[in-house]
């Protein structure tokens, strides 16, 4: 017999999650500062990138009421947290809140490309952005990771990608790089269910 408590069970964030986490998107300004709007800040070293995509349901339709949260290290592989060794640049938070265009479902966020971070037992994890996805119809927030397709050497030895038994599914975690008007764009579509279902993690 132990006296541990049980974790509070999850419930869906529902269709109106923006009211709580991004009220400006719900249609009203209430807070002096909304959170998660500036991931990297002005002083962060590293390549400035935009990540964009769609969350797609089992019918192939965009999920227009989804909300994403991002968590990443800086270009030196350091998280803005005391349990990560090193310092981050002034203004670097590493946390983002991403909402969709309610009409199209398209989302995008601007940040810097993270560096590799330390893994378990001295391994090195390839550059990645941690993602948490909530929406109406999602009972427990979904965790996944964005990796970068142009980091092929680092991805090949990444300890997390290598945990995925089905090598063909690893590609669902690779963002595709392109350039538009001088800006670096990574495309990352997320399939909640279906033939190309994105890999989700139990962390």
């Amino acid at each position, binding site marked *: 017999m132990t006296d541990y408590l049980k974790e509070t069970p999850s*419930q*869906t964030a529902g*269709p109106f999650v923006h009211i709580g986490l991004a009220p400006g998107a719900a249609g009203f300004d209430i807070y002096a500062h909304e959170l998660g709007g500036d991931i990297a800040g002005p002083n962060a070293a590293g390549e400035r990138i935009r990540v964009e995509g769609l969350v797609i349901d*089992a019918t192939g339709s965009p*999920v227009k009421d989804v909300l994403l949260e991002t968590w990443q290290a800086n270009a030196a592989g350091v998280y803005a947290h005391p349990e990560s060794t090193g310092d981050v640049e002034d203004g670097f938070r590493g946390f983002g809140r991403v909402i969709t265009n309610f009409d199209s479902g398209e989302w995008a966020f601007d940040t810097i490309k993270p560096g590799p971070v330390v893994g378990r037992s001295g391994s090195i994890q390839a550059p990645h952005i941690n993602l948490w996805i909530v929406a*109406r119809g999602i009972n427990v927030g979904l965790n996944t990771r964005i990796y970068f397709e142009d980091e092929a050497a680092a991805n090949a030895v990444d300890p997390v990608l290598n945990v995925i038994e089905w090598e063909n*599914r690893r590609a669902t975690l690779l963002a595709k790089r392109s350039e538009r008007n001088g800006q670096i764009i990574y495309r990352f579509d997320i399939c909640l*269910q279906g033939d190309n279902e994105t890999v989700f993690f*139990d962390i």
Partner: protein
Amino acid sequence: MKSSPAEYYQRDREWHPPALTPDYKTSVTRSPKFALISLENTVSEITGPRFGHSDIDAADNDLLHNYAADGHSAIGERIIVHGRVLDENARPVPNTLVEAWQANAGGRYRHKKDMYLAPIDPNFGGCGRTITDADGYYYFRTVKPGAYPWRNWVNSWRPAHIHLSVFGAAFAQRLITQLYFEGDPLIPKCPIIKTLSDSRAVDQLTAKLDMNATIPLDTIAYKFDIVLRGRRSTLFENRLEGN
């Protein structure tokens, strides 16, 4: 730094709802079919965003007034929702952000996508946020939200509820849930609540009337503790062969 962090206890996936819950219809097309890939915690999971008092305003937790015109207040039953954020080891989680959002007393959300015929309350925004103190304590003042209809069955009504979002110290602890109110007859009928298979889990989401915290002639109180994942306190490293 330690190359392998002390992990958080694994999530009890049988305590949480499963992804696919057909009676909550929206989950059918939004639930992954493949099994989640189990990951041992790395620095990416044991770290997470941190927020301080410079990120929010002290009055953000007063939903009666945080969107009201001067001298006005939101319409509805005045309530306090309070409790502690703890971890599974029953230790307080201090200095963590708690965010709340809800419908107004008539069951209407202030959201451009909510078309329910109950009126918007001009003095009620419907969201608040606060940071727990050193003991993990938090509180909000608000109005009791109304029940409202939604499209699931032809005649489905959500019980009164407040959505809560909590961070903890690590991305692995991130949680969104809903608080229900003791005695609400809609609770046992709700397809979203029935995604939980254990009645004790439903009870854990039910805020209890708290007469001791009620302010006489002023505001009724409900108590609601929130529990985040706990963490191992000892670490034995399993060295990989040849390491």
